[in-house]
Structure formats: structure tokens, C-alpha cells
């Protein structure tokens, strides 16, 4: 495999469903997934992420556009002819086969000898620390165990790319957190490109090398988890990932690298991440934890605390800076003696440089 060729290239893919009314599941999506990457497709249900996964797996064909696997066109190939395996949301373990037979199924279909299969099955069971489970039936396993088996069943034939369709969504929280680490470890150990579909932003953040945020069949942003969080491109991404304060401003001046945007005579300096003219109405996004509380005399912003909620790690404050704008502010609870403002108190808020992001829309 040539490492410089993308593992998967999705070129201007359109997918329509001829229902009534017709559904546009994917609208001109172009994505390149690199070799050995943990890549996540993130979005709410109905955003087209699962459709894209099914197109790559070959269960459905694109209406327009092409999908390439390491430079080879996949058009017209059935799922069984694509060196790509899927981990299904509902696991889909074959109920009439033992765990070992489930894991060996792909290799058996590829025509490998039973000795070879037995070796791989043993390795795969060891990979998820379930060495003694080979002879059990799927219904004798817990949800988390079934999940692990579904994972190694798809890994056993050594696919070029592993597709994971919301594989953790049926598990309880603790198990889900453990499986995140396990998935990340497996990806590193096997060196296989993972394409992971999820609607859970936390999952996307903690495992992925890069995340593609999708909405309504379109790609919204493709970036590292950090950039997705710190530099959301538009309102959708800013709102979908984490909590955010959106502030309506007007571009008042510009210089080479930044704009000055003002809101009620408060001026924010922001990086030029998108093109605007002086006088344009623009939206700024500031994450709640970026603010720091200062005395009301100092600080860029001044406002009144209207609500305060204790959340354990943080206290969430709602600060009203003018009649139309309330900001959510998060203060970390460092110790018991910490003096937090009470409701009705006037506070000042400082915003570090670069904390505000200019949105495209």
C-alpha cells in the first residue's frame, strides 16, 4: 500500500433516495481519509454519516460521484468484493455460530485453511482478552463482550479500512468509556485505517485524529478535534460541539491578520478565518470556559450575574451584559474557599486574545 495515497477518497458524492418526497442523503461530499488514520464522521441523526459509511462498504451505490480505496475505484463492487469490513451498531453476530466461528467467518469465506483460521481466531480473541470465549454462543455474552467480538470479527480478515457504525451506542456509560480507549489502542496496534461514525461529540473528540462534522448531507468542517472545538467554522459546528456563546457583532475595522468586531462598543479582535467587509454583521463564538472573572472595574465585558448553577467540577454562571445578550460562563471549582459572585452581583469578564472565533455565517 502506498502510504501517500489516501485510504479513502470520497469525490463529490451525491446520494438521493427515490422516496416521496425524495431525500437528499448526501449533497456533494468530498472527503479524503488518510492511511492509518482514526477518522470520525460526526453529526446528528439523519446527517448522512451512516449513508456515507454504507456507500464505502458497498451496501448502497452513490447517485453521483466516486469513492476510491487507495486509489482504486470501488464502483460496481459488491460488499464481498471490497477489502473493507464493518462493525455494525447492533453487532450482527451470527446467532447460530460460536464466537470462534463468527470471528473466522470472513477468513473462511476468503478460502483460508482451517489451521490458518484457528491461528487468527486465537490472536483475535487475545487482542480483546477473551481467550476462553471461543466455544460460546453469542447469546451467552454480555453487550460489551459481543461488541468486542463484533470488532475483532471485522478485524480478522485484515481489512484495508475498518468501518465502525456507532458501535458504542448500545453500551452503558462506563463500558463506553472503556471501549473508547480500547478502540484507540486497537487502531494503533493494528495500524488499520478506522472510519468511525458517531453522533456523540465526546467519542469523536477523544479518539479521532481528524473529525468530519456533517449536517443535512453536507460536510460542515473537517479538522482535528482541537481545531473543531477551538475554531468552529460555522454556527452549526459551534453549537453541535460543546457549549458556546454566540455574540452578534459588526466588523468595525480590519488589518492584515485580524478584524476588529464590535458589539455595543465592546471591541473584540479576531483572526481572519473567513472573509468579510467592514460593516458586515458577523457572529463570534466564545466557549464558556474561556472567560475569566475579574473585578467589575477591569475586564473587557461587564455584566450582572442572573443565574448560578453548581455542577461539581464547575459552576455555571449566566451573566447579562446587555438587554439582548446573556453569556454562559464556566468557573472551575478549585477549592471550597473560592468566592464566586452571587446572583445580582456585577462582575467583569476578561477574554484572552484568540478566544473568540469568527464564524462564516
Amino acid at each position, binding site marked *: 500500500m502506498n502510504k501517500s495515497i489516501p485510504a479513502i477518497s470520497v469525490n463529490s458524492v451525491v446520494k438521493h433516495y427515490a422516496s416521496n418526497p425524495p431525500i437528499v442523503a448526501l449533497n456533494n461530499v468530498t472527503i479524503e481519509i488518510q492511511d492509518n488514520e482514526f477518522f470520525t464522521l460526526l453529526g446528528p441523526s439523519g446527517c448522512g454519516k451512516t449513508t456515507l459509511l454504507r456507500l464505502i*462498504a458497498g*451496501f448502497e451505490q452513490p447517485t453521483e460521484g466516486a469513492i476510491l480505496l487507495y486509489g482504486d475505484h470501488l464502483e460496481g463492487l*459488491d*460488499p*464481498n468484493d471490497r477489502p*473493507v*469490513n*464493518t462493525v*455494525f451498531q*447492533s453487532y*450482527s453476530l*451470527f*446467532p*447460530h*455460530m*460460536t464466537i470462534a*466461528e463468527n470471528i473466522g*467467518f*470472513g477468513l473462511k*469465506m*476468503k478460502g483460508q485453511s482451517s489451521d490458518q483460521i484457528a491461528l487468527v481466531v486465537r490472536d483475535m480473541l487475545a487482542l480483546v482478552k477473551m481467550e476462553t470465549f471461543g466455544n460460546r454462543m453469542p447469546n451467552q455474552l454480555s453487550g460489551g463482550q459481543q461488541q468486542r467480538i463484533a470488532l475483532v*470479527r*471485522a478485524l480478522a*480478515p485484515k481489512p484495508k479500512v475498518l468501518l465502525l457504525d456507532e458501535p458504542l451506542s448500545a453500551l452503558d456509560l462506563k463500558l463506553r468509556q472503556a471501549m473508547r480507549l480500547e478502540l484507540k489502542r486497537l487502531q494503533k496496534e493494528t495500524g488499520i485505517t478506522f472510519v468511525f461514525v458517531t453522533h456523540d461529540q465526546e467519542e469523536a473528540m477523544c479518539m479521532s485524529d481528524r473529525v468530519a462534522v456533517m449536517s443535512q448531507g453536507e460536510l460542515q468542517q473537517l479538522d482535528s478535534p482541537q481545531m473543531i472545538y477551538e475554531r468552529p467554522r460555522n454556527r452549526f459546528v459551534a453549537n453541535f460541539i460543546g457549549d458556546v456563546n454566540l455574540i452578534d457583532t459588526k466588523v468595525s475595522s480590519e488589518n492584515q491578520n485580524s478584524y476588529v468586531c464590535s458589539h455595543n462598543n465592546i471591541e473584540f479582535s479576531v483572526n481572519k478565518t473567513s472573509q468579510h467587509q467592514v460593516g458586515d454583521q458577523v457572529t463570534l463564538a466564545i466557549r464558556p470556559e474561556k472567560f475569566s472573572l475579574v473585578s467589575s472595574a477591569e475586564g473587557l465585558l461587564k455584566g450582572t450575574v442572573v443565574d448560578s448553577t453548581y455542577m461539581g467540577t464547575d459552576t455555571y454562571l449566566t451573566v447579562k451584559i446587555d438587554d439582548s445578550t446573556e453569556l454562559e460562563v464556566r468557573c472551575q471549582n478549585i477549592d471550597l474557599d473560592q468566592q464566586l459572585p452571587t446572583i445580582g452581583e456585577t462582575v467583569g469578564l476578561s477574554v484572552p486574545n484568540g478566544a473568540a472565533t469568527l464564524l462564516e455565517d
Partner: protein
Amino acid sequence: MEIKLPANPITRRWLGLSPALITIFIFMVLPIALLGVYSFKPADSYGGVEAGFSLDAWIQLFFDRDLDDTLIFDSIYLQIIWRSVMLAAIGTTLSFLVGFPVAWYIVQQPPERRDILLLLVTIPFWTNLLIRAYSWILILGKNGMIEQPLLAMGLIDDSLEMMYGNMAIGVGLVYSYIPLMILPIYASLEKIDFGLVEAAHDLYADRWAVIQRIVMPLCLPGIIAGCILVFVLSLGDFISPSILGGGKKMMLSNLIQFQFSSARNWPFGGALTMLLLMLVAFGSYFYIKASRKSAYLEK
């Protein structure tokens, strides 16, 4: 008015089941038991039975009585039984080979079309069995719908002689009972999680491998039910053999019918009936056992 139910839950359960149990007892268990009893009685000359105990009917199954009352082994009835079993087995196999793909096709259709197709499958049941059997004569018979065009085109010179033989009986059996193969198979196919089919497809199984290794094992209960239904009814069918087979080849069912009508030998008819019942019961039992076993061993 207050009805007092017995306190014991077991008594209550039996009480609840009693209408069904009584019906089954009166209309199924009793007549069959009566036939069983009749088979051990001596026949009288008028079609009834005399008092007493006699094994004559059962002996008649295997032996012929010579003039001097010595028993000579006679396989004529065994041949009839063997022929009936074979024909029923072939009919069942053909029904499965045709019925399974049909059921698999129907289950893959969108829900509205499925209902229509299932309705079409059951349509032959709406017509009298006798009429359906006669209509096959028009299709298969001399100068029938198949032969006529072939004769006219000069592809054949003489009648194909499709009627009144094993082939015509086989066609009749498959045609009559195929819905009973399709419906149970469809019912169990419908319950299969289609995600499993996709998963197998994803793991390099082609269409045939998917059917062989995933679909068939998972719908085995439906296949077994369909095969038993078709086999049992084929074995007991007397319309196809007598109309489409022209009555030339005696089948077990014809033989039984003959004993109770023209031959007026009720004890012998009873013995044949009991034999048929045992064949079906044992056959089904072993078939189910064997299928279950192979389903687990196949893996």
C-alpha cells in the same frame, strides 16, 4: 352471578384448555383409536367387523394366504407403500426447491408488495382441489396446452405422454401443496435480522454463501415445518394419484380409500391407516432430530 374458579392453578389451566382438548379428543383421538381397534378385529362379509380378536388385517400387509392356509410373503402392499413414500419425498424435495426461492424473493420485497404476493400464493387454495387436478389434464394431457403448440410447430410427432404417470402425480403434488412450503418458510425468513445478511456479505460471503450459511440455518424451523406439511399431505393425497395418475398406479391413500369403499375391508383399511400414521410420525420425528443435529454440526 359469581362463578367460582377452582383454587388450584393446575386445575384451572386444564379447565381453560378443556374445550380444545374435548374437541381434539372427540374428532381426532377417538376416530383414530377406533380405527386402531378395528384393525385387530375379524372382518365380516358386509364391511363391518365381528366381535373377537384377529391379526388377519396386519398379516395381510405382508403375507398372502395360500389355498392351504400357509402364509407366503407378498410384497405387493409394501411396494405400494414404498412408491407412495418415494413420490411424497420427491414431491417434498421439488416443493422445497421451488418454494424456498419464492419465499426468499417475497421476503425481500417492500411490505405492500409482499402482502399481494402472499395472497397470490394462497389463491389456488380458494378453488376446489378436484377442479385444480382436472385443469392439469388440460395442460399436460394429450393435445393439451403444452403438446398442441409443440405438435403444431412440428417439434414433436407424437404425444409426450405426460399424463397418467409419476410425473403428472409429482406435478400435481407440488402444485397442490407448495403454498404449505412457502408460507412457513416465509414466516421464518421474515424474522431473520437482515443485518446478519449484510454482515455476512460484508465478510466476503457471496449471495450463495449467504443463503447457505446464514439464511438457511436460521430459517430451518420454517423449512422443517414446510417439509413435514408437504410430505404428510402428499403421502395422504388420493386425488393427484387417481386423477393425474389415472388410477393406474395404486398409492397408499388410494389403497386405504379402496378398503373402506369397494373392498369393504375395514380392519385392513384400519391397519393401513395405522401404518401410514406411524410412518408419518416416525418420519417427522427423525427428520426433526436429524435436522437439528446437522444444524449444530454444520458449523
